[in-house]
């Protein structure tokens, strides 16, 4: 019996050693910051001043913070504007470049280029293009439309940032769709064609059902990314979050509130917890919608 209890008291070493590097990295850079953020959200901690426990005070405060609601509105609008485009457009693009015709490799690479380009570079280029005196406005003026305040109007700024997000994400999701399309049996298309189905009907009745699970994946990935958008809006709207901060997203608000020497780390942590909860809910909603359609 003593031998058995000694065996029970001991843990197998080898699996732990194999898992150790991964566990250490996850522990240090994911779990610890996550737990620390949750703990901080219940304190009034500032960058240089350790916090005291304040219970739910930070969460109560954000309910009365106009900037929080502005951030929530913009992050939600970002999902509404970006996700449908990122679910549909890359699929159409994938169908276009799927065919093996001469020179198609060039187009595949061209569509993928924005994905590998640095977001800062891309953001700055778009800022130059959309500037009051930029190329786009000069063209609009030349054709008699006049200058448009892409970077000075609250809504146009948000739309411009969405356009950049969609433009930059097209190639990435196109590759995911290309992989899914490669698995659609050619016989299904041939059978539908024999039954008299045209290209649009074949797309709706063969292609879409075949890549539906990929569409759900793209919807889930892009909605989480859209809700957490930061770089595009920060680069185009500036650190203040657009005119009067009206284009601030939730993650921008976290950055603005929690950084710097006087940063309110406790309050920014509470905002981060809200972003996390909303993101999890979003994922669950997408998965649930998918399951309901399957049944």
């Amino acid at each position, binding site marked *: 019996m003593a031998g058995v209890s000694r065996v029970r008291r001991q843990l197998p070493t080898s699996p732990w050693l194999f898992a150790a590097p991964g566990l250490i990295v996850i*522990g240090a850079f994911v779990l610890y910051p996550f737990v620390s953020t949750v703990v901080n959200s219940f304190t009034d901690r500032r960058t240089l*001043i350790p916090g005291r426990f304040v219970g739910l005070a930070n969460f109560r405060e954000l309910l009365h913070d106009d900037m929080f609601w502005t951030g929530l509105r913009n992050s939600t609008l970002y999902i509404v504007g970006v996700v449908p485009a990122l679910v549909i457009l890359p699929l159409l693009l994938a169908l276009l470049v799927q065919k093996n015709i001469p020179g198609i490799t060039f187009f595949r690479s061209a569509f993928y280029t924005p994905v590998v380009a640095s977001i800062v570079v891309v953001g700055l280029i778009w800022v130059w293009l959309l500037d009051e005196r930029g190329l786009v406005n000069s063209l609009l003026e030349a054709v008699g439309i006049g200058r448009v305040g892409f970077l000075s109007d609250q809504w146009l700024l948000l739309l411009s940032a969405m356009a950049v997000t969609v433009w930059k994400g097209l190639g990435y999701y196109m590759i995911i769709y290309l992989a899914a399309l490669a698995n659609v049996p050619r016989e299904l298309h041939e059978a539908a064609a024999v039954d008299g189905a045209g290209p649009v009907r074949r797309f709706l009745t063969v292609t879409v059902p075949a890549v539906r699970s990929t569409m759900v994946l793209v919807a889930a990935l892009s909605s989480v990314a859209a809700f957490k958008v930061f770089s595009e809006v920060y680069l185009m709207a500036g650190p203040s979050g657009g005119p009067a901060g009206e284009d601030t997203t939730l993650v921008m608000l976290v950055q603005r509130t929690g950084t710097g020497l006087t940063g309110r780390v406790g309050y920014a942590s509470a905002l981060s917890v809200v972003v996390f909860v909303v993101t999890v809910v979003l994922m669950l909603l997408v998965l649930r919608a998918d399951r309901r359609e399957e049944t």
Partner: protein
Amino acid sequence: MRISRRTFAAAAVALVLPLSACGSGGDDGGSTDASGKVEGDITFQTWNLRANFKPYFEGLIADFEKKYPGTRVKWIDQPAEGYADKISADAAGGTLPDVVNVSPDLVAPLAEAGLALDLDKAAGKYKSEYLDGAWASHQVPGLSGTYAFPWYLNTGPLFYNKSLFEKAGLDPSTPPKTYDELFADALRLAKKSDGKVATLANVPTIEDFGRYGVQLMNKEGTGFGFNDAKGVELLSKYKELYDAKALDPQALTATPESSGKKFLTEAVAMNPGSALDLGNFKKQAPNLYKNIGITDQITSTGHVNMYVMGVMVNSRTKHTPAAVAFAHFVTDARNQMSFAKKVAIFPSTAGSLDDPYFTKEDGTDETRVRIAAAQSLKNAVNYTPVLFSEQMKTALRNEVAKALQGKESPKTALDNAVKACDQLLKQQG
């Protein structure tokens, strides 16, 4: 192979121990006594100075190490962008350098957190070497003490495009000096260019309110007051400019970089800058360079805004005597004067501004500008409240934007800004 629970627990502790170092630094700092022997290795951090002044600082450090054998100074330089974030990360991580280049608004939170050495106690004997106002610029309301040696001062020139002034029928040799003159000229420029040329690219900042004659804070430093009648008047005038496109439409989201670019492309007629910008204009916009005019900051109080740089000593340094001695060495009259001859900055040491270098004309434009700036520095005021944090700047900027867009009246906007800033001030403790 098996692993015992004891070994597993030890491994877990080894994992967690380094993480515990991620929190705020403990109070295991050095001493406030700077009277010991000047020796040891210290680190000195500057704010975006390596690119242009590397030989000067290398020489300065060599001189110090020669004067105090047994000391070694490691110099690090940080880029201008994100400097406050870098300091806050270092301060929170317990890796703040021993001697740090700061501005008054950066030193305030560090002093409140007990990370800046009180120089009234540790280096009070040097106080008389500096201008009174400069020494006081690193004092923090609510705390007793002085938390950085004053270093160089500047008023920052205001550049203007003479050609654009001329096209609008304005005399380029008499640029606006007061806000009233500025508003009149700006409206004229906008009208004559059919709204294509704005005069300014930035919304008013707290310093603009100060230079317009607005009382920014109460005397106790416990609350803001820039929502008074004078403040509302200034914002109402800016609203007029915005409506007439005399203030650039993108001013609401402008950054110093973007407004600099607007000036470079001749989309705006005036822009504040630094002496370093002249070289930039010469290289990037030679046509503009030929038409550049340089004038003083706009002010209706007779006082321009003085920007003060300081050198702080980390209260947790292990080598307090060496750190204090080095911070004093960098900012003493001889070295400040030597630095001032390399770039258009002005020493904060007593009597230095009376040096012939700042008083005697030699017929060149450069000297004329230098003498005028030194003259205006003598009665300049540091209008930036020490406790005005980044979050407060954002609150003011957002409310100003709402007023300019017509979403709120100037009075409501400033009332809201003051309320938000007071709230943040209270949270700062």
